[in-house]
């Protein structure tokens, strides 16, 4: 930066904006929010003259570290258990990043504050940075880690896989529907402000503990941009709050965005941190402890609650319920167990848990072994092919779950499952909040108010339906999760790379066909559905069948 101070330079660049005299810019996105022309200041005061060299310097550090990692043979010390989960994470995350870039124009016409548009444009290019720097990290893993399978067909996998579909909400929710709901509340107020702490700070710390210091290098560099994005969201939120008529919509959107982020991000990151690590020191934080610190204390108590005085209705009940899910209802453990149950439909290898893992889980989550221990012992027993099926088709006291129509994570906390006929179709939901999102929030009217700009939940939201009646070998082949010999599966339920111990398509041929829970649900009579629901909510924990009636 030259002699000119940042404040002076920033003030000068405000002279750049102008009101159209002849033609209005095109208006392509709608919102049901209204904004007074309250002049809120751009909180970033970012000028490109200083921004570019700053980012370049950050790049120097990232790429220097990458060179160092390769020269220093980092991969001789990387835990495979950890790197395998990165095949999922790094297939997902570049899309949310680039979607955040694409989301910025949604705000140009809907938030009438040219001063903020400068910050939004910088956020746009930051997000291009994040997406490509993450793709590049994945490329480095593919080139240098022992098992490139899953990295090498990463984006095809992600776009075909049910876990990828869960993760994709974290991108598509930014770029469609009501512009403010999507690009401001869902993206910046909740996803970036709350959940990037666990994504980009807590998880990289765990990577370092597993011998991988490149994930922290890249993601801390990414996270250093997030504070600016959080400021964008905060400024927009304050503008929205200044108009009373927005309060009802803000309440709706905070509920939806908070709950969906919890369902999606806690499922994924919780699993990576708890089940992808080999670091079982008793004094290292569990995901629940990290969540309490980063999300409950830092986000909820320090960021959200102070906004109450401006009229923001905080979903206190849902924040407590998310904690209840994580701490009392074993949400993360249920999800990890399901990912491992469905290992054959994935594209990474999932390491069985050991006695050391069991001990750590029991210490951090008292009662864990009674719920999940036996199942993981079965997982271990069934991990190499030996005349049996993959665990999903073996009798291990696990009932294959129905899928939540809204968040697309299965309905794993069985007692919370709800069911409704919506848009002419019977749907299951993992929680009443997800049912509310589909039935009430994503609709053209809300509490009697017209909300013509609200988006819709679309798509084939239940993966199993596409493969209803298919043989598992054909399913895996259709998705492309097969290695270069044409038969060995990309996914494995263990880390042994001895080809004799690896599952192939041939092992899957003998399995019973895939059945779509949702197709079956819609074929049943009302009485059968009621009986199914009554049984389902008595199941669990750990997917156990409902106890037999006395």
């Amino acid at each position: 930066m030259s002699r000119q101070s940042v404040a002076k330079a920033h003030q000068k660049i405000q002279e750049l904006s102008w009101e159209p005299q002849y033609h209005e810019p095109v208006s392509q996105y709608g919102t049901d929010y209204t904004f007074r022309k309250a002049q809120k200041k751009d909180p970033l005061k970012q000028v490109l003259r200083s921004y570019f060299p700053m980012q370049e310097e950050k790049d120097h550090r990232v790429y220097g570290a990458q060179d160092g990692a390769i020269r220093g043979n980092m991969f001789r010390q990387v835990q495979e258990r950890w790197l395998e989960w990165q095949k999922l994470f790094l297939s997902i995350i570049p899309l949310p990043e680039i979607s955040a870039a694409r989301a910025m124009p949604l705000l140009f016409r809907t938030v009438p504050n040219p001063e903020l548009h400068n910050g939004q444009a910088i956020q746009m290019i930051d997000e291009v940075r994040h997406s490509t720097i993450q793709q590049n990290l994945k490329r480095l893993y593919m080139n240098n880690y022992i098992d490139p399978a899953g990295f090498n067909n990463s984006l095809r996998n992600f776009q075909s896989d049910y876990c990828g579909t869960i993760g994709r909400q974290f991108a598509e929710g930014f770029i469609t529907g009501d512009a403010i709901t999507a690009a401001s509340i869902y993206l910046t107020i909740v996803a970036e402000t709350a959940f990037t702490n666990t994504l980009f700070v807590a998880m990289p710390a765990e990577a370092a503990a597993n011998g991988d210091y490149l994930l922290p290098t890249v993601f801390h560099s990414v996270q250093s941009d997030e504070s600016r994005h959080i400021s964008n969201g905060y400024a927009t939120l304050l503008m929205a709050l200044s108009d009373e008529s927005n309060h009802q919509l803000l309440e709706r959107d905070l509920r939806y965005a908070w709950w969906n982020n919890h369902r999606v991000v806690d499922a994924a990151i919780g699993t990576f941190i708890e089940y992808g690590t080999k670091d079982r020191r008793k004094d290292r934080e569990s995901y629940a402890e990290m969540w309490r610190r980063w999300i409950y204390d830092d986000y909820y108590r320090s960021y959200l609650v102070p906004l109450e005085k401006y009229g923001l209705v905080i979903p206190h009940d849902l924040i407590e319920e998310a904690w209840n899910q994580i701490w009392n209802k074993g949400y993360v453990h249920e999800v990890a167990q399901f990912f491992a149950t469905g290992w054959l439909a994935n594209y990474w290898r999932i390491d069985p848990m050991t006695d050391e893992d069991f001990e750590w889980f029991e210490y951090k989550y008292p009662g864990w072994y009674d719920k999940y221990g036996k199942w993981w012992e079965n997982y271990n027993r069934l991990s190499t092919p030996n005349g049996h099926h993959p665990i999903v088709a073996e009798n291990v006291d696990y009932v294959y779950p129905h899928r939540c129509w809204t968040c697309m994570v299965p309905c794993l906390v069985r007692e919370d499952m709800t069911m409704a006929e919506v848009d002419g179709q019977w749907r299951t939901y993992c929680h009443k909040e997800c049912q509310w999102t589909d039935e009430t929030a994503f609709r053209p009217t809300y509490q009697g108010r017209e909300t013509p700009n609200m988006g819709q939940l679309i798509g084939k939201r239940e993966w199993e339906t596409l493969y209803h009646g298919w043989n598992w070998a054909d399913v895996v082949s259709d998705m492309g999760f097969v290695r270069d010999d044409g038969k060995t599966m990309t996914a494995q339920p263990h880390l042994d790379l001895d080809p004799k111990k690896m599952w192939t398509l041939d092992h899957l041929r003998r399995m019973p066909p895939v059945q779509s829970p949702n197709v079956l649900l819609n074929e049943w009579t009302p009485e059968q559905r009621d009986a199914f629901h009554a049984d389902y909510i008595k199941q669990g924990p750990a997917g156990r069948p409902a106890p037999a009636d006395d």
Partner: protein
Amino acid sequence: MTTPQERSVPKPVFTDAEAGAKTFPDSDSRRYNYFTPAKRKQSHYEDVTVEVQPDPRHYLSQGWLYGFSDGRGGYPLDWTVLKAWGSDRPEPERYPGSGGKGYDWPATGWHEFRDPNEEWELTFYRYNSNVVRQVNQNIDNARQSKAFEQWNQNWVKFVERNVGAWMHVDHGLGLYLYANANRRAPTNMHNNAISVNSMHRIRSAQDLALYNLTLTEEIPSFDGQAHLEAWNNDPQWQGVRETAEQLTATDDWCEAIFASNVIFEPLVGELFRSQLVQHAAPRNGDFVTPTIVGVAEYDFAERDLRYTRAMFELLTSDREFADHNKQIINGWLSTWTARSIAAARALQPIWSQPDSKPPRFEDGLDAVKSRFAALLSDLHLDVPKELGQ
């Protein structure tokens, strides 16, 4: 004697998880295999760019999951009227038991586009950091050598009004045309190239604004607010302003990029920057302004136009829709050439403002028309009759 307490830290473990440690299926399959590279070997740029933005026509088996209020999600192809081969194929139907496969890569011609600048974050930040460093050094050097004292009064007025006015073109188009368009195109390759273009323009606007601030500090008679007056009220600038506003009002993303980068910039932007400012400045004692304006010219001529040319070459030589596209583009050429020529002609009086005159306006206009015609020829397009206006 107390025993020091052992710190709790993760212990390094030798895992031997590096490439080549074992041989097994896929052990040496170390390239992204879900797309076909444009050349024999896939480039670093392709690896970090291709397929990040999905397309239900090939791998997106469950389709888009969130839609606008009309139920449409993702990046609809009809956000432009131009078409690439395969555009009319329906999205693969998904239903119970359908499976998830779509069309083979690339499914449509849209996915064949590659940015010849191969821009991704590493290249982008290096390039722009070098630019701002160079611009800063030039200005600092000029200040230290008292270079601004050589400017005659008419040139001071020229820079404060006219060079100042151009910052508004860069800013308005950078945000409301280019950044806006980065949500609209059907592939990541298009949208990333467009977002880089956007930042060139926004940076250039800021370069001019901060240069203006320096001049306000260095030249006692320099009016740092005159650019606003020129942009808002000078009749010479109202044609440019109206055309710029029309560009931001364009709904079709291909039309917006084409009209701006193939028509407006060559006929108006280059006319102003290269044919006027770059030629007039040295004659009026100013060696600084050309270095700043020249950077923007390089952005456009060597980078932004380069990707635009590659983008539209594909569409005008498309194996299925070349004629369809050319017919539509000819309509755009007719409309936007007329507007751009009118905007250029409205600027003519400013050619006579400096004491030492630049080459004649008509000569400059002929030069840019000639370059524009060559550009159209490269794109297999006809020169519109409106160019003769």
